[in-house]
């Protein structure tokens, strides 16, 4: 009995030790940090894993087929969006350009869209895929560094092991040196398709008239938004054409007034005087319309979209459409719109104001008036109750005080630093009379006004066309018949 009991005790102890050890090891395994999965249990090499396509061309690959292709190996690693660096690791796979060759290759007007099984997608430019144009970073400092030849591959192996489920079986990798990494968002994992896509082609419309302008496609499309200047017309087949009325495009070049607000830009007087509008296609075909036909006519539309899509190829990018136009007048593939002004249609400017400094510029009377209307107006009423209107002197100074080409509508052109450094502003009349002011006096001083109107009318003849006025100026400083403003640097 004692022996039996001893056997039971020994057996119990052995069992307990075994159970305890098993439980302990299992518990320890559970608390070990998760590790990156290894290769999938089934390598799935015979299953279709992904597709490469370009238009109607498409090719599906198995993992085995990918692995049978000539492989390229190299180093690659990533920096994630918060600056954390992983790798570089040894990568092995097939260059993406080789895969694209199977569906006709890639051209400079194409892009490549890679999509993962979870729907994540990334689009690469031709330059990235073919020339490896990526930002590269030092793997120890994270700083940007120049790089040698980079190759984009579809990787299936990392550090000698097949990619696990966490990243594979296929992912995009960018091969580099063993000391550099690239941005992580380019490294699409779980890749299941690669697609060559055609980029939306940009175009431009040449506008010619009193001035010329090349309007790019983005500017045109922005202007054609419904809330902006967009117009539409539905043809007899129910197709909806969208674009910009022709007269608004004409208004941009019918005189030398560079208004940003097109509704104000169209010059009715010039149109009434008469001119021709030529709408010209890429092959030279053109139609001519009179200014009377075009003037504020919302039914002549230069369309860039039909039924919400870019215009079909044989009419792309622009087509003139409208309810009263014949088929022949509906010019397609428009590249140029020309306003042919008679010699007398645009009057010579009555006066110009010459600006001289780091740059020179001649301001015409119409430009002055437009700038006044647009936003630079200033006024002062003298002791006799006369209301003088014009533009502050400092704004003219700002146009030529440095060599920076300012936007016409940009109010921030004046350089405070140069003014603080000191220069002289000379205001010169037609007869040579002049007055000089310091930059400190002129700097952002809205009380020194170059006036072009008095009591709503052009300035009286003996002071015409421009007079410097303001509440703090002496009579002698109020230069009349101004023709020139000169910024003289020390």
């Amino acid at each position, binding site marked *: 009995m004692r022996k039996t*009991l001893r056997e039971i*005790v020994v057996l*119990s*102890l052995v069992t*307990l*030790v075994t159970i*305890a*050890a098993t439980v*302990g090891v299992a*518990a*320890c395994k559970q*608390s070990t*940090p998760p590790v990156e999965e290894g290769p999938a249990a089934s390598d799935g090499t015979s299953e279709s894993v992904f597709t490469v396509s370009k238009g109607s061309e498409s090719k599906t690959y198995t993992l085995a087929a990918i692995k049978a292709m000539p492989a390229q190996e190299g180093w690659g690693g990533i920096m*994630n*969006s*918060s*600056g*954390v660096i992983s790798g570089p690791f040894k990568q092995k796979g097939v260059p993406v350009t080789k895969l694209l060759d199977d569906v006709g290759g890639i051209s400079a007007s194409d*892009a490549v*869209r890679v999509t993962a099984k*979870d*729907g*994540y*997608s*990334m*689009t690469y*430019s031709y*330059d990235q895929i073919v020339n490896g144009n990526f*930002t590269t*970073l030092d793997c120890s400092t*994270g*700083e*940007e560094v120049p790089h040698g030849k980079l190759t984009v591959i579809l990787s299936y192996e990392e550090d000698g092991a097949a990619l696990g489920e966490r990243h594979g079986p296929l992912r995009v990798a960018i091969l580099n040196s063993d000391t550099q990494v690239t*941005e992580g*968002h380019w490294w699409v994992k779980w890749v299941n398709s690669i697609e060559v*896509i055609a*980029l*939306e082609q*940009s175009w431009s419309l040449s506008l010619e008239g009193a001035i010329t302008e090349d309007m*790019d*496609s*983005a500017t045109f*499309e*922005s202007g054609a*938004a*419904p*809330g*902006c200047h967009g117009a539409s017309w539905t043809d007899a087949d129910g197709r909806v054409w969208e674009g910009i009325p022709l007269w608004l495009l004409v208004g941009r070049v019918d005189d030398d007034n560079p208004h*940003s607000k097109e509704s104000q830009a169209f010059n009715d007087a010039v149109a009434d005087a008469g001119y021709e509008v030529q709408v010209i296609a890429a092959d030279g075909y053109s139609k001519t319309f009179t200014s009377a036909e075009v003037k504020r006519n919302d039914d002549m539309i230069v369309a860039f979209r039909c039924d919400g899509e870019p215009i079909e190829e044989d009419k792309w990018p622009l087509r003139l459409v409208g309810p009263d136009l014949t088929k022949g007048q509906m010019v397609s593939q428009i590249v140029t719109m020309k306003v042919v002004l008679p010699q007398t249609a645009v009057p010579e400017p009555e006066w110009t104001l010459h600006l001289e400094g780091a740059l020179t510029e001649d301001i015409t009377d119409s430009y002055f008036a437009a700038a006044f209307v647009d*936003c630079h107006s200033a006024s002062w009423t003298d002791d006799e109750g006369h209301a003088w209107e014009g533009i502050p002197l400092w704004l003219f100074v700002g146009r030529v005080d440095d060599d*920076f*080409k300012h*936007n016409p*509508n*940009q*109010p*921030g*052109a004046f350089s*405070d*630093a140069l003014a603080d450094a000191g220069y002289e502003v000379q205001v010169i009349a037609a007869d040579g009379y002049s007055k000089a002011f310091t930059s400190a006096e002129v700097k952002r001083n809205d009380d020194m006004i170059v006036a072009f109107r008095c009591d709503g009318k052009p300035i009286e003849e003996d002071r015409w066309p421009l007079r410097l006025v303001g509440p703090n100026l002496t009579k002698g400083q109020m230069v009349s018949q101004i023709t020139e403003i000169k910024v003289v640097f020390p």
Partner: protein
Amino acid sequence: MALVRRVVCCTLAVFSLVVLLLPPGCSREPVRLHILEAGSLVIPFEEVEKEFERQNPGIDLLLEGHGSIQVVRHITEIHDEADIAAVADYSLLPMLMYPVQLPDDQGPYADWTISFATNCLGLAYTPQSAYSDEIDAGNWHEILSREDVTFGISDPRFDACGYRSLMLLRLAEDHYDDTDILERLIVRSFRPAIKVREEEGVCTIQVPELLEPIERRVTLRGFSVQLLALLESRDLDYAFQYESVARQHGLEFLQLPPEVDLSSAEHAHEYQRVRVKIDFRRFATVTPEFEGLPIVYGVTIPRNAPHKKEAVEFLRFLLGPGGRRILEDARQPVMPPAVDNPANLPAQLRALIDHPTR
């Protein structure tokens, strides 16, 4: 009886031996709390981590920084089991986690969000940047227009800071009455072109699928953090950046008016007049169209978090006086915590919340 006592003693001894033989740390392993955070929270959360772990030696914070959208994607699409998700745009959590169901009908990935921090967008620069002695909140757009000035913006396709920078530039046009700022600084600098449409009082900035700068003086990088090094190396004069990040890295920061810097709830209705639409869909669950909103950070505990109890403890600390003070010391502006769905909030956190969000 003596034999039974011996058996019990031996058994206890064996168990003690087994415990002693286990690998070091196995039995005392701290809970590893997996925190996915927005990139701009990396530095403040590192500071929070030090104090929280000191006070809670049984909890080890595993911090992992990503772009905010990527934070959510790790949970809902890559199925990482995270205990905390903290993002730089609180609207992303309801947008991307509430509608997505956990496997096996266990409900949504999240059903409440606490807003807890703010920020503002402006220009980071260094004393060596061109015209740094001249630039101010009134002339920055003119200075960036100069041909000898370089500036950087993060890619609006990948980074919230990038699309918010586009919003800022459009808002600046109204504020400074300069209708050309976005066109001058950004639209003309990229191909294919960024398109801008105005419709019924709302401006939509449409970013193409591919975006490459064509002007040497404009630099595009995937994420705003990458622009910091370029400022320091003087490859850039200015970069659009969050104030907290710029100051955490010791950079100068030009604060812009609240009408444009996306910091002010008072100007929210103005911000909402600008939207950014991205022409390609990077994530299956993300519709890439973003509305102008004040910058507000959000945090939640995913419903599949492995360590909910410890996650609650972490939020109690983060949102409490101690955590808020650490965030502020790390130059991360905070706001009174507020929750959108109070009924769903863990009871232990309710005391921290002042009021529900709008």
